[in-house]
Protein backbone atom coordinates (compact mmCIF):
# COMPACT_ATOMS: atom_id res chain seq x y z
CA UNK A 1 0.00 0.00 0.00
CA UNK A 2 2.88 2.35 0.76
CA UNK A 3 4.10 1.93 -2.78
CA UNK A 4 0.74 2.87 -4.21
CA UNK A 5 0.52 5.92 -1.95
CA UNK A 6 3.96 7.06 -3.05
CA UNK A 7 2.99 6.66 -6.68
CA UNK A 8 -0.24 8.59 -6.15
CA UNK A 9 1.78 11.40 -4.55
CA UNK A 10 4.06 11.42 -7.60
CA UNK A 11 1.10 11.62 -9.97
CA UNK A 12 -0.48 14.47 -8.05
CA UNK A 13 2.79 16.42 -8.14
CA UNK A 14 3.16 15.67 -11.85
CA UNK A 15 -0.35 16.94 -12.53
CA UNK A 16 0.40 20.15 -10.61
CA UNK A 17 3.64 20.57 -12.58
CA UNK A 18 1.79 20.07 -15.87
CA UNK A 19 -0.84 22.63 -14.94
CA UNK A 20 1.81 25.10 -13.80
CA UNK A 21 3.79 24.64 -17.02
CA UNK A 22 0.60 25.18 -18.96
CA UNK A 23 -0.06 28.43 -17.13
CA UNK A 24 3.42 29.91 -17.35
CA UNK A 25 4.54 28.80 -20.84
CA UNK A 26 2.60 31.39 -22.84
CA UNK A 27 3.75 34.07 -20.38
CA UNK A 28 7.42 33.13 -20.49
CA UNK A 29 8.14 32.23 -24.11
CA UNK A 30 9.61 34.95 -26.32
CA UNK A 31 7.46 36.70 -28.88
CA UNK A 32 4.52 36.83 -26.48
CA UNK A 33 2.25 34.22 -28.06
CA UNK A 34 -0.64 35.46 -25.93
CA UNK A 35 -0.67 38.78 -27.79
CA UNK A 36 -0.56 36.96 -31.11
CA UNK A 37 -3.57 34.90 -30.05
CA UNK A 38 -5.46 37.99 -29.02
CA UNK A 39 -4.54 39.77 -32.22
CA UNK A 40 -6.05 36.90 -34.14
CA UNK A 41 -9.09 36.74 -31.88
CA UNK A 42 -9.91 40.43 -31.92
CA UNK A 43 -10.67 40.47 -35.60
CA UNK A 44 -12.86 37.40 -35.50
CA UNK A 45 -14.65 37.13 -32.20
CA UNK A 46 -17.04 38.80 -29.85
CA UNK A 47 -15.82 41.17 -27.11
CA UNK A 48 -16.79 38.64 -24.43
CA UNK A 49 -14.58 35.97 -25.98
CA UNK A 50 -11.68 38.39 -26.22
CA UNK A 51 -12.18 39.36 -22.58
CA UNK A 52 -12.17 35.70 -21.55
CA UNK A 53 -8.96 35.11 -23.48
CA UNK A 54 -7.36 38.16 -21.90
CA UNK A 55 -8.02 36.63 -18.52
CA UNK A 56 -6.68 33.25 -19.61
CA UNK A 57 -3.46 34.65 -21.05
CA UNK A 58 -3.02 37.45 -18.55
CA UNK A 59 -3.17 40.43 -20.89
CA UNK A 60 -4.64 43.81 -19.87
CA UNK A 61 -5.55 42.68 -16.42
CA UNK A 62 -4.80 44.38 -13.13
CA UNK A 63 -4.52 41.07 -11.27
CA UNK A 64 -0.92 40.07 -10.58
CA UNK A 65 0.64 36.86 -11.86
CA UNK A 66 -0.12 35.03 -8.61
CA UNK A 67 -3.74 36.14 -8.69
CA UNK A 68 -4.04 34.96 -12.29
CA UNK A 69 -2.51 31.63 -11.33
CA UNK A 70 -5.06 31.13 -8.57
CA UNK A 71 -7.82 32.16 -10.96
CA UNK A 72 -6.55 29.62 -13.50
CA UNK A 73 -6.78 26.87 -10.90
CA UNK A 74 -10.32 27.90 -9.94
CA UNK A 75 -11.32 27.71 -13.60
CA UNK A 76 -9.70 24.30 -14.02
CA UNK A 77 -11.35 22.88 -10.93
CA UNK A 78 -14.69 23.98 -12.36
CA UNK A 79 -13.82 22.05 -15.51
CA UNK A 80 -13.32 25.24 -17.50
CA UNK A 81 -10.47 24.85 -19.99
CA UNK A 82 -11.23 28.05 -21.87
CA UNK A 83 -12.82 28.82 -25.22
CA UNK A 84 -11.68 27.61 -28.59
CA UNK A 85 -10.40 30.32 -30.91
CA UNK A 86 -11.41 28.50 -34.01
CA UNK A 87 -14.69 26.83 -33.17
CA UNK A 88 -16.02 29.80 -31.19
CA UNK A 89 -18.25 29.75 -29.13
CA UNK A 90 -17.52 26.07 -28.43
CA UNK A 91 -15.60 25.55 -25.21
CA UNK A 92 -12.37 23.60 -25.24
CA UNK A 93 -13.97 21.15 -22.84
CA UNK A 94 -16.84 20.33 -25.19
CA UNK A 95 -14.49 19.78 -28.14
CA UNK A 96 -12.35 17.41 -26.11
CA UNK A 97 -15.39 15.60 -24.70
CA UNK A 98 -16.60 14.89 -28.22
CA UNK A 99 -13.22 13.53 -29.34
CA UNK A 100 -12.13 11.66 -26.21
CA UNK A 101 -14.32 8.51 -26.48
CA UNK A 102 -12.90 7.76 -29.95
CA UNK A 103 -9.34 7.97 -28.73
CA UNK A 104 -9.99 6.05 -25.52
CA UNK A 105 -11.71 3.24 -27.38
CA UNK A 106 -9.03 2.99 -30.04
CA UNK A 107 -5.97 3.31 -27.83
CA UNK A 108 -7.40 1.18 -25.03
CA UNK A 109 -8.29 -1.75 -27.26
CA UNK A 110 -5.11 -1.56 -29.32
CA UNK A 111 -2.89 -1.35 -26.25
CA UNK A 112 -4.49 -4.39 -24.61
CA UNK A 113 -4.21 -6.43 -27.83
CA UNK A 114 -0.62 -5.33 -28.34
CA UNK A 115 0.37 -6.13 -24.75
CA UNK A 116 -1.20 -9.60 -24.73
CA UNK A 117 0.02 -10.52 -28.21
CA UNK A 118 3.50 -9.09 -27.66
CA UNK A 119 3.91 -10.89 -24.36
CA UNK A 120 2.85 -14.23 -25.82
CA UNK A 121 5.19 -13.86 -28.79
CA UNK A 122 7.97 -12.83 -26.43
CA UNK A 123 7.47 -15.99 -24.36
CA UNK A 124 7.55 -18.10 -27.49
CA UNK A 125 10.67 -16.33 -28.79
CA UNK A 126 12.49 -16.95 -25.51
CA UNK A 127 11.42 -20.58 -25.26
CA UNK A 128 12.43 -21.37 -28.78
CA UNK A 129 15.57 -19.29 -28.84
CA UNK A 130 17.35 -19.82 -32.12
CA UNK A 131 14.19 -20.62 -34.07
CA UNK A 132 12.75 -18.58 -36.92
CA UNK A 133 11.19 -16.23 -34.38
CA UNK A 134 14.62 -14.71 -33.76
CA UNK A 135 14.72 -13.63 -37.38
CA UNK A 136 11.49 -11.71 -36.91
CA UNK A 137 13.14 -9.52 -34.27
CA UNK A 138 15.01 -7.20 -36.68
CA UNK A 139 11.78 -6.66 -38.62
CA UNK A 140 9.99 -5.81 -35.39
CA UNK A 141 12.84 -3.44 -34.55
CA UNK A 142 12.18 -1.57 -37.77
CA UNK A 143 8.49 -1.23 -36.96
CA UNK A 144 9.42 0.08 -33.54
CA UNK A 145 11.93 2.56 -34.90
CA UNK A 146 9.71 3.77 -37.75
CA UNK A 147 7.25 6.45 -36.69
CA UNK A 148 3.68 5.27 -36.01
CA UNK A 149 2.33 7.60 -38.64
CA UNK A 150 4.60 6.13 -41.29
CA UNK A 151 3.28 2.65 -40.46
CA UNK A 152 -0.18 4.21 -40.70
CA UNK A 153 0.56 5.69 -44.13
CA UNK A 154 1.78 2.27 -45.30
CA UNK A 155 -1.36 0.62 -43.93
CA UNK A 156 -3.58 3.13 -45.74
CA UNK A 157 -1.71 2.69 -49.02
CA UNK A 158 -1.75 -1.10 -48.87
CA UNK A 159 -4.98 -2.16 -47.15
CA UNK A 160 -7.25 0.76 -47.95
CA UNK A 161 -6.19 2.26 -51.27
CA UNK A 162 -4.64 -0.74 -53.00
CA UNK A 163 -6.66 -3.67 -51.67
CA UNK A 164 -9.73 -1.76 -50.57
CA UNK A 165 -10.32 -4.05 -47.59
CA UNK A 166 -10.93 -1.30 -45.07
CA UNK A 167 -11.97 2.37 -45.19
CA UNK A 168 -9.05 4.81 -45.33
CA UNK A 169 -10.42 7.57 -43.17
CA UNK A 170 -12.91 8.76 -40.55
CA UNK A 171 -14.40 6.99 -37.55
CA UNK A 172 -17.63 5.96 -39.26
CA UNK A 173 -19.47 6.60 -42.48
CA UNK A 174 -20.59 10.18 -41.78
CA UNK A 175 -22.50 10.48 -45.04
CA UNK A 176 -24.94 7.61 -44.53
CA UNK A 177 -25.06 6.83 -40.81
CA UNK A 178 -26.12 8.61 -37.66
CA UNK A 179 -24.41 7.79 -34.37
CA UNK A 180 -26.57 5.56 -32.20
CA UNK A 181 -26.81 2.15 -30.63
CA UNK A 182 -27.74 0.43 -33.86
CA UNK A 183 -26.09 -2.68 -35.18
CA UNK A 184 -25.20 -1.02 -38.48
CA UNK A 185 -23.49 1.88 -36.75
CA UNK A 186 -21.45 -0.30 -34.39
CA UNK A 187 -20.35 -2.58 -37.21
CA UNK A 188 -19.34 0.46 -39.24
CA UNK A 189 -17.33 1.91 -36.35
CA UNK A 190 -15.52 -1.40 -35.88
CA UNK A 191 -14.79 -1.59 -39.60
CA UNK A 192 -13.23 1.87 -39.48
CA UNK A 193 -11.24 1.06 -36.35
CA UNK A 194 -9.48 -2.05 -37.68
CA UNK A 195 -6.70 -0.30 -39.64
CA UNK A 196 -5.80 2.35 -37.03
CA UNK A 197 -5.79 -0.32 -34.33
CA UNK A 198 -3.67 -2.63 -36.47
CA UNK A 199 -1.16 0.21 -36.95
CA UNK A 200 -0.87 0.84 -33.22
CA UNK A 201 -0.52 -2.87 -32.46
CA UNK A 202 2.13 -3.33 -35.14
CA UNK A 203 4.14 -0.32 -34.02
CA UNK A 204 3.96 -0.98 -30.28
CA UNK A 205 4.13 -4.79 -30.03
CA UNK A 206 7.90 -4.91 -30.67
CA UNK A 207 8.66 -3.34 -27.30
CA UNK A 208 6.62 -5.93 -25.41
CA UNK A 209 8.09 -8.80 -27.43
CA UNK A 210 11.68 -7.77 -26.77
CA UNK A 211 11.09 -6.96 -23.11
CA UNK A 212 9.33 -10.24 -22.48
CA UNK A 213 11.86 -12.28 -24.44
CA UNK A 214 14.84 -10.86 -22.59
CA UNK A 215 13.21 -11.24 -19.18
CA UNK A 216 12.00 -14.74 -19.98
CA UNK A 217 15.46 -15.88 -21.04
CA UNK A 218 16.82 -14.83 -17.66
CA UNK A 219 13.92 -16.46 -15.81
CA UNK A 220 14.20 -19.78 -17.64
CA UNK A 221 17.63 -20.25 -16.07
CA UNK A 222 16.27 -19.94 -12.52
CA UNK A 223 16.44 -22.96 -10.24
CA UNK A 224 12.70 -23.26 -9.70
CA UNK A 225 12.14 -23.63 -13.44
CA UNK A 226 14.77 -26.35 -13.52
CA UNK A 227 13.08 -28.03 -10.56
CA UNK A 228 9.69 -27.81 -12.24
CA UNK A 229 11.08 -29.52 -15.26
CA UNK A 230 12.98 -32.11 -13.23
CA UNK A 231 9.71 -32.99 -11.54
CA UNK A 232 8.40 -33.86 -14.97
CA UNK A 233 5.68 -31.24 -15.13
CA UNK A 234 4.17 -30.80 -18.57
CA UNK A 235 5.99 -28.16 -20.62
CA UNK A 236 2.92 -25.95 -20.78
CA UNK A 237 2.93 -25.70 -16.97
CA UNK A 238 6.65 -24.98 -16.77
CA UNK A 239 6.33 -22.17 -19.32
CA UNK A 240 3.41 -20.84 -17.32
CA UNK A 241 5.46 -20.67 -14.11
CA UNK A 242 8.37 -18.93 -15.80
CA UNK A 243 6.19 -16.55 -17.80
CA UNK A 244 4.23 -15.37 -14.78
CA UNK A 245 7.44 -14.34 -13.07
CA UNK A 246 8.97 -12.80 -16.15
CA UNK A 247 5.85 -10.71 -16.69
CA UNK A 248 6.45 -8.33 -13.78
CA UNK A 249 9.05 -6.04 -15.36
CA UNK A 250 6.87 -5.78 -18.45
CA UNK A 251 3.97 -4.56 -16.32
CA UNK A 252 6.16 -1.97 -14.63
CA UNK A 253 7.52 -1.04 -18.05
CA UNK A 254 3.96 -0.27 -19.01
CA UNK A 255 4.13 3.12 -17.30
CA UNK A 256 7.08 4.05 -19.48
CA UNK A 257 5.45 2.85 -22.65
CA UNK A 258 2.00 4.34 -22.24
CA UNK A 259 3.15 7.91 -22.97
CA UNK A 260 4.81 6.78 -26.19
CA UNK A 261 1.82 4.71 -27.24
CA UNK A 262 -0.63 7.55 -26.65
CA UNK A 263 1.58 9.97 -28.58
CA UNK A 264 1.89 7.45 -31.40
CA UNK A 265 -1.84 6.86 -31.43
CA UNK A 266 -2.50 10.60 -31.75
CA UNK A 267 -0.30 10.67 -34.87
CA UNK A 268 -2.02 7.57 -36.23
CA UNK A 269 -5.41 9.26 -35.90
CA UNK A 270 -4.18 12.15 -38.04
CA UNK A 271 -3.34 9.86 -40.97
CA UNK A 272 -6.76 8.22 -40.75
CA UNK A 273 -8.65 11.48 -40.07
CA UNK A 274 -10.00 9.54 -37.10
CA UNK A 275 -12.26 11.89 -35.11
CA UNK A 276 -10.30 11.60 -31.85
CA UNK A 277 -8.00 13.82 -29.82
CA UNK A 278 -5.10 13.47 -32.27
CA UNK A 279 -7.10 14.83 -35.18
CA UNK A 280 -8.40 17.67 -33.02
CA UNK A 281 -4.80 18.39 -32.04
CA UNK A 282 -3.72 18.46 -35.69
CA UNK A 283 -6.50 20.85 -36.67
CA UNK A 284 -5.70 23.08 -33.71
CA UNK A 285 -2.03 23.26 -34.72
CA UNK A 286 -3.01 24.22 -38.25
CA UNK A 287 -5.22 27.06 -36.98
CA UNK A 288 -3.03 28.21 -34.04
CA UNK A 289 -5.83 27.35 -31.62
CA UNK A 290 -3.69 27.61 -28.48
CA UNK A 291 -6.44 27.13 -25.86
CA UNK A 292 -7.35 23.77 -27.44
CA UNK A 293 -3.68 22.71 -27.68
CA UNK A 294 -3.13 23.46 -24.02
CA UNK A 295 -6.38 21.78 -22.99
CA UNK A 296 -5.40 18.64 -24.89
CA UNK A 297 -1.99 18.61 -23.19
CA UNK A 298 -3.69 18.65 -19.78
CA UNK A 299 -6.24 15.98 -20.65
CA UNK A 300 -3.60 13.65 -22.09
CA UNK A 301 -1.44 14.14 -19.02
CA UNK A 302 -4.32 13.25 -16.71
CA UNK A 303 -5.20 10.21 -18.85
CA UNK A 304 -1.61 8.98 -18.88
CA UNK A 305 -1.35 9.42 -15.11
CA UNK A 306 -4.55 7.41 -14.58
CA UNK A 307 -3.26 4.65 -16.87
CA UNK A 308 -0.06 4.61 -14.82
CA UNK A 309 -2.04 4.26 -11.63
CA UNK A 310 -3.93 1.35 -13.13
CA UNK A 311 -0.64 -0.33 -14.03
CA UNK A 312 0.58 0.22 -10.46
CA UNK A 313 -2.51 -1.46 -9.01
CA UNK A 314 -2.04 -4.39 -11.38
CA UNK A 315 1.57 -4.65 -10.33
CA UNK A 316 0.64 -4.69 -6.65
CA UNK A 317 -1.94 -7.36 -7.40
CA UNK A 318 0.58 -9.54 -9.22
CA UNK A 319 3.53 -9.09 -6.89
CA UNK A 320 2.79 -10.00 -3.26
CA UNK A 321 6.09 -8.46 -2.12
CA UNK A 322 4.83 -4.95 -2.79
CA UNK A 323 1.80 -5.63 -0.58
CA UNK A 324 3.74 -7.08 2.34
CA UNK A 325 5.92 -4.03 2.69
CA UNK A 326 3.31 -2.06 4.63
Amino acid sequence: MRLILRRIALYVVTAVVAITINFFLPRLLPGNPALAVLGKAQSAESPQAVAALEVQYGVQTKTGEWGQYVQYWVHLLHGNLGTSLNAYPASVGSLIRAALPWTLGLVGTATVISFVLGTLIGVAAAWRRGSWLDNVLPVMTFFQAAPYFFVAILAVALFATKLGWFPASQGYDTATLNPGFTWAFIANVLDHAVLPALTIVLASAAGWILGMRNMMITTIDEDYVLLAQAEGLPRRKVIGYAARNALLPNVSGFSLAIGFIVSGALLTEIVFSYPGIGYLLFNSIGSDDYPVLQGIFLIITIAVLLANLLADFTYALLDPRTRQEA
Partner: protein
Amino acid sequence: MRRLLRSPKIVTGLCLTVAFLILAIVGPLVAPYNPNSSASTTIGIAQPPSAAHLLGTTQTQQDVLSQLLAGGRSTILVSLVAGVAATVLAVGFGVAAGYLGGWADDLLSMLANIFLVLPALPLLIVIFGLLGRSNNPNDLLIGFIIAVTGWAFGARQLRAETLTMRARDFIDSAKIIGERSWRIMVFEILPNLVPIVATSFLFTVIYGVGTFTALSFLGVINTSQWSWGTMLYWAQNAQAAQDVHIQWWWFLPPGLAVGLFGTGLALLNFGIDEYVNPRLRTAGITGRRARKAGLPRRPQHGLTPVLRSPEAA
Protein backbone atom coordinates in the same frame (compact mmCIF):
# COMPACT_ATOMS: atom_id res chain seq x y z
CA MET B 1 36.72 -4.57 -29.10
CA ARG B 2 37.15 -7.38 -31.61
CA ARG B 3 34.52 -9.36 -29.78
CA LEU B 4 32.18 -6.41 -30.22
CA LEU B 5 32.82 -6.34 -33.95
CA ARG B 6 32.02 -10.04 -34.30
CA SER B 7 28.37 -9.49 -33.34
CA PRO B 8 26.28 -9.22 -36.52
CA LYS B 9 23.97 -6.78 -34.74
CA ILE B 10 26.82 -4.40 -33.95
CA VAL B 11 28.21 -4.64 -37.48
CA THR B 12 24.85 -4.08 -39.19
CA GLY B 13 23.97 -1.29 -36.79
CA LEU B 14 27.33 0.39 -37.25
CA CYS B 15 27.11 0.22 -41.05
CA LEU B 16 23.61 1.73 -41.09
CA THR B 17 24.51 4.47 -38.64
CA VAL B 18 27.74 5.44 -40.41
CA ALA B 19 25.95 5.46 -43.79
CA PHE B 20 23.37 7.88 -42.44
CA LEU B 21 26.02 10.09 -40.83
CA ILE B 22 27.79 10.35 -44.19
CA LEU B 23 24.46 11.14 -45.81
CA ALA B 24 23.91 13.93 -43.31
CA ILE B 25 27.30 15.46 -44.07
CA VAL B 26 27.41 15.22 -47.88
CA GLY B 27 23.67 14.91 -48.62
CA PRO B 28 22.86 18.58 -49.24
CA LEU B 29 26.02 18.96 -51.34
CA VAL B 30 25.26 16.13 -53.76
CA ALA B 31 21.53 16.81 -54.13
CA PRO B 32 20.86 17.02 -57.89
CA TYR B 33 18.30 19.83 -57.61
CA ASN B 34 17.33 22.61 -55.28
CA PRO B 35 14.74 20.89 -53.04
CA ASN B 36 12.49 23.95 -53.22
CA SER B 37 12.43 24.57 -56.94
CA SER B 38 9.68 23.19 -59.14
CA ALA B 39 10.63 21.51 -62.38
CA SER B 40 7.37 22.56 -63.99
CA THR B 41 4.52 24.82 -63.05
CA THR B 42 1.98 23.28 -65.38
CA ILE B 43 1.88 19.68 -64.09
CA GLY B 44 -0.23 19.23 -60.97
CA ILE B 45 0.35 15.59 -60.06
CA ALA B 46 3.32 13.87 -58.47
CA GLN B 47 5.44 12.14 -61.13
CA PRO B 48 6.80 8.59 -60.63
CA PRO B 49 10.56 7.95 -60.68
CA SER B 50 12.28 8.64 -64.00
CA ALA B 51 15.81 9.19 -65.27
CA ALA B 52 15.61 12.91 -64.55
CA HIS B 53 14.07 12.44 -61.11
CA LEU B 54 15.35 9.18 -59.61
CA LEU B 55 12.77 9.20 -56.81
CA GLY B 56 10.07 11.01 -58.73
CA THR B 57 8.59 14.37 -57.87
CA THR B 58 6.12 15.85 -55.43
CA GLN B 59 2.81 17.36 -56.41
CA THR B 60 4.52 20.70 -57.07
CA GLN B 61 7.22 18.99 -59.17
CA GLN B 62 9.97 19.25 -56.58
CA ASP B 63 12.62 16.52 -56.72
CA VAL B 64 12.01 13.93 -53.94
CA LEU B 65 15.63 12.68 -53.94
CA SER B 66 16.93 16.20 -53.41
CA GLN B 67 14.51 16.73 -50.54
CA LEU B 68 15.55 13.43 -48.99
CA LEU B 69 19.24 14.35 -49.21
CA ALA B 70 18.70 17.88 -47.97
CA GLY B 71 16.34 16.82 -45.19
CA GLY B 72 18.67 14.21 -43.75
CA ARG B 73 21.06 16.77 -42.34
CA SER B 74 18.64 18.60 -40.10
CA THR B 75 16.89 15.38 -39.02
CA ILE B 76 20.14 13.73 -37.97
CA LEU B 77 21.64 16.91 -36.52
CA VAL B 78 18.61 17.56 -34.32
CA SER B 79 18.55 13.97 -33.08
CA LEU B 80 22.28 13.96 -32.30
CA VAL B 81 22.03 17.26 -30.43
CA ALA B 82 19.06 15.90 -28.51
CA GLY B 83 20.98 12.70 -27.75
CA VAL B 84 24.10 14.48 -26.49
CA ALA B 85 22.22 17.03 -24.41
CA ALA B 86 19.86 14.44 -22.91
CA THR B 87 22.76 12.13 -22.07
CA VAL B 88 24.63 14.93 -20.30
CA LEU B 89 21.50 15.67 -18.29
CA ALA B 90 20.92 11.97 -17.57
CA VAL B 91 24.50 11.46 -16.36
CA GLY B 92 24.39 14.58 -14.23
CA PHE B 93 21.07 13.80 -12.59
CA GLY B 94 21.49 10.03 -12.40
CA VAL B 95 25.00 9.83 -10.98
CA ALA B 96 24.45 12.72 -8.59
CA ALA B 97 21.19 11.24 -7.29
CA GLY B 98 22.69 7.78 -6.88
CA TYR B 99 25.91 8.92 -5.24
CA LEU B 100 24.70 11.72 -3.00
CA GLY B 101 21.65 9.88 -1.65
CA GLY B 102 19.43 11.41 1.03
CA TRP B 103 17.25 14.40 0.25
CA ALA B 104 19.26 15.25 -2.89
CA ASP B 105 18.41 11.80 -4.23
CA ASP B 106 14.74 12.23 -3.29
CA LEU B 107 14.57 15.56 -5.06
CA LEU B 108 16.42 14.52 -8.22
CA SER B 109 14.56 11.22 -8.49
CA MET B 110 11.26 13.02 -8.06
CA LEU B 111 12.21 15.35 -10.91
CA ALA B 112 13.22 12.42 -13.12
CA ASN B 113 10.01 10.56 -12.32
CA ILE B 114 7.90 13.59 -13.17
CA PHE B 115 9.56 13.93 -16.58
CA LEU B 116 9.18 10.19 -17.05
CA VAL B 117 5.40 10.16 -16.71
CA LEU B 118 4.73 13.56 -18.29
CA PRO B 119 3.66 12.81 -21.89
CA ALA B 120 6.48 14.36 -23.91
CA LEU B 121 4.97 14.83 -27.35
CA PRO B 122 1.89 16.86 -26.29
CA LEU B 123 4.15 19.03 -24.11
CA LEU B 124 6.52 19.64 -27.03
CA ILE B 125 3.58 20.46 -29.28
CA VAL B 126 2.44 23.14 -26.83
CA ILE B 127 5.98 24.53 -26.52
CA PHE B 128 6.67 24.66 -30.25
CA GLY B 129 3.13 25.77 -31.01
CA LEU B 130 3.48 28.73 -28.68
CA LEU B 131 7.00 29.48 -29.94
CA GLY B 132 5.31 29.95 -33.27
CA ARG B 133 6.36 28.89 -36.70
CA SER B 134 7.36 32.50 -37.36
CA ASN B 135 9.98 32.42 -34.59
CA ASN B 136 11.69 29.69 -36.60
CA PRO B 137 13.79 27.94 -33.92
CA ASN B 138 17.09 26.58 -35.30
CA ASP B 139 18.19 22.95 -35.21
CA LEU B 140 20.30 23.34 -32.06
CA LEU B 141 17.48 24.89 -30.06
CA ILE B 142 15.02 22.25 -31.28
CA GLY B 143 17.46 19.52 -30.20
CA PHE B 144 17.88 21.05 -26.74
CA ILE B 145 14.14 21.41 -26.19
CA ILE B 146 13.59 17.78 -27.21
CA ALA B 147 16.41 16.75 -24.85
CA VAL B 148 14.67 18.36 -21.89
CA THR B 149 11.82 15.86 -22.30
CA GLY B 150 14.03 12.84 -23.00
CA TRP B 151 16.69 12.52 -20.28
CA ALA B 152 14.68 10.95 -17.47
CA PHE B 153 14.83 7.29 -18.51
CA GLY B 154 18.62 7.30 -18.76
CA ALA B 155 18.90 9.13 -15.47
CA ARG B 156 16.85 6.47 -13.70
CA GLN B 157 18.98 3.64 -15.07
CA LEU B 158 22.22 5.43 -14.22
CA ARG B 159 20.99 6.17 -10.71
CA ALA B 160 20.20 2.50 -10.08
CA GLU B 161 23.62 1.45 -11.32
CA THR B 162 25.38 4.15 -9.29
CA LEU B 163 23.58 2.91 -6.18
CA THR B 164 25.05 -0.55 -6.56
CA MET B 165 28.48 0.98 -7.11
CA ARG B 166 28.41 3.30 -4.12
CA ALA B 167 28.92 0.45 -1.67
CA ARG B 168 31.94 -1.02 -3.46
CA ASP B 169 35.39 -1.03 -1.94
CA PHE B 170 37.11 1.19 -4.47
CA ILE B 171 34.66 3.98 -3.76
CA ASP B 172 35.27 3.62 -0.04
CA SER B 173 38.99 3.80 -0.56
CA ALA B 174 38.61 6.90 -2.73
CA LYS B 175 36.60 8.47 0.07
CA ILE B 176 39.22 7.57 2.66
CA ILE B 177 41.97 9.09 0.53
CA GLY B 178 39.88 12.24 0.72
CA GLU B 179 38.76 12.63 -2.88
CA ARG B 180 36.02 15.16 -3.38
CA SER B 181 32.51 14.01 -4.26
CA TRP B 182 32.57 15.41 -7.79
CA ARG B 183 35.93 13.71 -8.44
CA ILE B 184 34.61 10.37 -7.26
CA MET B 185 31.55 10.76 -9.45
CA VAL B 186 33.43 11.80 -12.59
CA PHE B 187 36.63 9.75 -12.34
CA GLU B 188 35.69 6.72 -10.23
CA ILE B 189 32.04 5.99 -10.98
CA LEU B 190 31.46 7.34 -14.49
CA PRO B 191 34.09 5.18 -16.29
CA ASN B 192 32.29 2.11 -14.95
CA LEU B 193 29.00 3.28 -16.39
CA VAL B 194 30.17 3.60 -19.99
CA PRO B 195 27.98 0.80 -21.46
CA ILE B 196 24.89 2.23 -19.80
CA VAL B 197 25.75 5.76 -20.88
CA ALA B 198 26.23 4.45 -24.43
CA THR B 199 22.86 2.67 -24.54
CA SER B 200 21.17 5.66 -22.97
CA PHE B 201 22.75 7.92 -25.61
CA LEU B 202 21.61 5.67 -28.47
CA PHE B 203 18.16 5.43 -26.92
CA THR B 204 17.79 9.21 -26.77
CA VAL B 205 19.03 9.65 -30.34
CA ILE B 206 16.28 7.24 -31.46
CA TYR B 207 13.86 9.21 -29.32
CA GLY B 208 15.15 12.43 -30.92
CA VAL B 209 14.65 11.18 -34.50
CA GLY B 210 11.15 9.97 -33.75
CA THR B 211 10.11 13.07 -31.87
CA PHE B 212 11.58 15.56 -34.35
CA THR B 213 10.00 13.70 -37.26
CA ALA B 214 6.67 13.60 -35.45
CA LEU B 215 6.80 17.33 -34.69
CA SER B 216 7.67 18.17 -38.29
CA PHE B 217 4.97 15.82 -39.54
CA LEU B 218 2.46 17.66 -37.38
CA GLY B 219 3.56 20.93 -38.99
CA VAL B 220 4.31 22.45 -35.61
CA ILE B 221 7.91 23.16 -36.65
CA ASN B 222 8.64 25.32 -39.68
CA THR B 223 7.24 23.39 -42.65
CA SER B 224 9.38 25.11 -45.28
CA GLN B 225 12.66 23.85 -43.82
CA TRP B 226 13.40 20.39 -45.21
CA SER B 227 13.50 17.37 -42.93
CA TRP B 228 12.16 13.85 -43.35
CA GLY B 229 9.22 14.83 -41.17
CA THR B 230 8.26 17.81 -43.33
CA MET B 231 8.44 15.59 -46.44
CA LEU B 232 5.90 13.29 -44.82
CA TYR B 233 3.85 16.33 -43.79
CA TRP B 234 3.52 17.47 -47.40
CA ALA B 235 2.93 13.94 -48.67
CA GLN B 236 0.12 13.47 -46.14
CA ASN B 237 -1.24 16.93 -47.02
CA ALA B 238 -1.48 15.88 -50.65
CA GLN B 239 -3.04 12.52 -49.64
CA ALA B 240 -0.25 10.64 -51.42
CA ALA B 241 -1.32 7.33 -49.85
CA GLN B 242 -5.04 7.86 -50.44
CA ASP B 243 -4.76 8.73 -54.13
CA VAL B 244 -5.92 6.06 -56.58
CA HIS B 245 -2.40 6.02 -58.00
CA ILE B 246 -0.47 5.56 -54.77
CA GLN B 247 2.48 7.97 -54.80
CA TRP B 248 4.76 5.58 -52.94
CA TRP B 249 7.94 7.30 -54.15
CA TRP B 250 6.93 10.34 -52.14
CA PHE B 251 6.21 8.92 -48.67
CA LEU B 252 8.30 5.72 -48.75
CA PRO B 253 11.85 7.21 -48.89
CA PRO B 254 11.61 9.58 -45.90
CA GLY B 255 9.74 7.02 -43.78
CA LEU B 256 12.20 4.25 -44.61
CA ALA B 257 15.09 6.60 -43.88
CA VAL B 258 13.77 7.39 -40.39
CA GLY B 259 13.00 3.73 -39.74
CA LEU B 260 16.38 2.46 -40.95
CA PHE B 261 18.36 5.09 -39.07
CA GLY B 262 16.44 4.16 -35.92
CA THR B 263 16.90 0.43 -36.62
CA GLY B 264 20.66 0.93 -37.00
CA LEU B 265 20.86 2.68 -33.64
CA ALA B 266 18.61 0.09 -31.98
CA LEU B 267 20.72 -2.78 -33.32
CA LEU B 268 23.83 -1.14 -31.86
CA ASN B 269 21.91 -0.88 -28.61
CA PHE B 270 20.94 -4.57 -28.59
CA GLY B 271 24.51 -5.46 -29.48
CA ILE B 272 25.81 -3.61 -26.44
CA ASP B 273 23.10 -5.21 -24.26
CA GLU B 274 24.17 -8.66 -25.44
CA TYR B 275 27.80 -7.78 -24.87
CA VAL B 276 26.99 -6.91 -21.26
CA ASN B 277 24.53 -9.79 -20.77
CA PRO B 278 25.68 -12.77 -22.90
CA ARG B 279 22.52 -14.75 -22.15
CA LEU B 280 20.53 -12.52 -24.49
CA ARG B 281 22.72 -13.51 -27.40
CA THR B 282 21.34 -15.42 -30.33
CA ALA B 283 24.33 -14.67 -32.49
CA GLY B 284 25.25 -17.59 -34.67
CA ILE B 285 23.08 -20.17 -32.92
CA THR B 286 20.43 -20.50 -35.56
CA GLY B 287 18.38 -23.66 -35.80
CA ARG B 288 20.48 -25.17 -38.58
CA ARG B 289 23.82 -24.50 -36.95
CA ALA B 290 22.58 -25.77 -33.61
CA ARG B 291 21.48 -29.04 -35.19
CA LYS B 292 24.78 -29.38 -37.02
CA ALA B 293 26.68 -28.89 -33.80
CA GLY B 294 24.55 -31.54 -32.12
CA LEU B 295 22.71 -29.21 -29.75
CA PRO B 296 19.33 -30.59 -28.68
CA ARG B 297 16.42 -29.00 -30.47
CA ARG B 298 14.40 -28.55 -27.29
CA PRO B 299 15.84 -26.02 -24.90
CA GLN B 300 17.63 -27.35 -21.85
CA HIS B 301 17.01 -25.59 -18.62
CA GLY B 302 19.76 -24.19 -16.52
CA LEU B 303 22.01 -24.16 -19.54
CA THR B 304 22.82 -21.38 -21.94
CA PRO B 305 23.80 -22.95 -25.24
CA VAL B 306 27.19 -21.68 -26.33
CA LEU B 307 28.75 -22.53 -29.66
CA ARG B 308 32.38 -22.12 -30.38
CA SER B 309 32.60 -21.02 -33.98
CA PRO B 310 35.52 -22.41 -35.97
CA GLU B 311 36.87 -18.90 -36.57
CA ALA B 312 36.90 -18.20 -32.85
CA ALA B 313 38.73 -21.38 -31.89
